[in-house]
Every structure is written in C-alpha cells, then in structure tokens.
C-alpha cells in the first residue's frame, strides 16, 4: 500500500511537472488543451470525482439527462482545473499578472470612507484566491479571517499581488475564533474578509440553498453588527485565462437592538448570502468549488 501511494505521488508530481513545462512553453492556452484529456479521464474513471461534485450538480441541475449530467460534471471539473492552471501560471511564470474588473468598487470605497470598517464576505467560488489578492489596492489595510492551516497557502496567493499592501491574516482557530482581533480591525476602519459559505464550528444559521438546508456561519454578521460596519457580499468569477471579475452582489448593515432580535437578524443576513450565491450560480454554474457534501448535516 505504501509502495502504491509512493508510486501515485510520483505520478502526480510528474503530472504537475508536465503542466508547469506546458505553461512555460505554451502558456495557459496550452495547459487548457492538456487539461481536456486529463479531466475527461478523471470524470470517466474516477468515481470519487463524480461523487464529489454530485451533491451540488444534482441540486443545480435536477432535471439533467445522463449525458447532460456528464457534461455538467466535465465542465465543473474542467473549470476548477482552469483555476489551478491560473494559480500555477501566477506562481511560476515571471511577470504573470491577473487582469480584471471590480464591479461595485465605488460602493466599497464609499463604505470604507465612512470609517466604520467593512466586512467583505465571499465564498469558495470562481478564482477567489487570485482575484481577492487584488483588493490589496484598497485605501485601508485588508485582513483575512481564516484557518491557520490554510494560512501559508493563502498568504502565498495573496502575496502574488505586487501592490504595496498585503493581507494581514487573522487566525480563525485562535481565541474566540479571531473575533476580537477582527472587531479591533473594523474599529480601526479596516476591511476584514471572511469566507461566508463554510461552517466549521461555532454559531450558525440554517437556511435554504438550492432547495435544501445548509448551515452558514454567523460570525461575519455579528462582527459587522457589533462594529456598526456594513457587510459587502463580493464573489469572484474567472472570466478567462488570467482574468477575473469581482462583483459586489449586496451591501447591507446587520443591526439588532436586543439579544432577542439577534437570531432574526442572523437569519435575514444568512438568507441574503444564500440568495446571492444562488444568483451567482445562475451566471456561473461551473464555478462552485465546495467539493464536499455541502448539505450534509
């Protein structure tokens, strides 16, 4: 078994090497062409891959035929492959630079100018890691509330941005889930980015998403309500090889007067977030990258 794992690891390393060489020689387009047979073989032969995307695709395309469903599976995996190629391109090719637009940038800067801070809520969709790195150009420091074990990888991608400012990481595994440090950052008028789609532990609210219930974390809304800061729902979409679109889908101020109203406020906020994700997935159905059973309780 150990021998087999080692063999597979070597095979995987060889595959990565082959992609990097292709990227250097033929650019992203060459890597995308190489991606087609690789993804096709994965989708055809890997039951694990098909199982991984099934919970989402069955809900997003409930009436798909067998062939249609196969096509959706291929396009989802291929789309994720393109994001990985883009990351590889940014990380290994000298002078590689992402280009893109931020729809709603003025809204974000106008909210920041009010001095109350801003909670920037996003999700594991599109080329979020590469695209969000470009938020380093905002007029105030940007903090990312995230898990410690992902710190190194995420920091790496944020640092791919060549702008002067870099992301400050707030450890979500630290005391009180990083909430005190995040609140302090908001009180300084800074931006705190949070992934709003994955509930791991702590407080959550159950809402409907693509026809079934999911749990969404409450922390972003509580932080915003406590600081008097707005929440901006911002999602990234890969719009081509090396390009992105960041779009503000909603901006709102979570507020509650007493603890009794807290649950109701959190429910309203979670519903806004869930609706925004659904709207995004109508436009970009293959850029959903929560590759696990998101609906499993």
């Amino acid at each position, binding site marked *: 078994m150990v021998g087999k794992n080692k063999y597979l690891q070597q095979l995987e390393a060889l595959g990565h090497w082959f992609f990097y060489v292709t990227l250097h020689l033929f650019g992203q387009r060459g890597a995308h062409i190489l991606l087609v047979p690789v993804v096709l073989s994965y989708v055809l032969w890997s039951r694990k891959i098909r199982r991984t995307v099934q919970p989402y695709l069955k809900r997003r395309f409930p009436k798909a035929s067998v062939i249609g469903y196969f096509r959706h599976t291929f396009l989802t995996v291929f789309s994720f492959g393109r994001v990985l190629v883009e990351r590889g391109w940014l990380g290994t090719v000298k002078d590689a630079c992402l280009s893109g637009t931020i729809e709603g940038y003025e809204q974000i800067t106008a909210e920041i100018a009010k001095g109350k801070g801003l909670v920037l809520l996003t999700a594991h969709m599109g080329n979020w890691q590469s695209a969000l790195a470009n938020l380093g150009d905002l007029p105030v420091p940007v903090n990312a509330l995230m898990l410690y074990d992902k710190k190194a990888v995420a920091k790496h991608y944020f640092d791919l941005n060549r702008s002067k400012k870099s992301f400050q990481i707030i450890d979500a595994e*630290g*005391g*009180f*889930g*990083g*909430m*005190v*440090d995040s*609140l*302090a950052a908001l*009180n300084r008028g800074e931006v705190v980015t949070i992934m709003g789609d994955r509930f791991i532990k*702590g*407080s959550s609210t159950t809402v409907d998403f693509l026809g079934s219930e999911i749990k969404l974390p*409450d*922390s972003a809304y*509580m*932080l915003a309500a*406590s*600081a008097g800061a707005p929440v901006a729902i911002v999602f990234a979409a890969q719009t081509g090889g090396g390009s992105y679109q960041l779009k503000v889908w909603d901006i709102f101020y979570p507020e509650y007067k*007493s*603890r*009794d109203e*807290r649950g109701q406020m959190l429910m309203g906020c979670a519903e806004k977030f869930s609706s925004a994700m659904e709207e995004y997935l109508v436009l970009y159905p293959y850029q959903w990258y929560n590759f696990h059973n998101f609906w499993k309780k």
Partner: protein
Amino acid sequence: METTKAKLKEILVNDLKLQGITPEEIGDTEPLFGEGLGLDSLDAVELVVLIQKYFDVQISDMEEGKVAFVSIESLAQYILDHKD
C-alpha cells in the same frame, strides 16, 4: 474593584441576557467561556463592545482578550488597569 465586578455581572445578565442566573450567583473566578457561564465567540464580540460602552476601555487584540476574558475578576482587573 467590587463595584466594577458587580457592574460586569449586571452587564452579563442584563445585556448579554444570560438566562437562569442572577448577577449575585455569578462567581468572581468562574470561567466566562466554555464550561462555566458558557459564553461563545459571538458573546465575546458583544462583550468587547459593551466594555467599551460602559467603561470606555477598548480590548484591541486577542492577546489582551485572552487574559481579560478568563473570569469576572480578570476582566475587572483589566478594566481598572486600562481606565484613564
């Protein structure tokens, strides 16, 4: 010190709305989070805001928070140490 502790207990019961307990029943050294009074990370955020509101004292980072949020006694001490 005693006045600050009493005020903090009042805040926990009235503002954070801890149920089934009166201010007098909260022990000075009882843990605030987890086992003990059972506050969670959302309550921590509210508590930071409430301390700022009632005592004009800011808890600005987690290192400070860790020390302060152990119990009523440590929180009261923190407030007294940081009040102008």
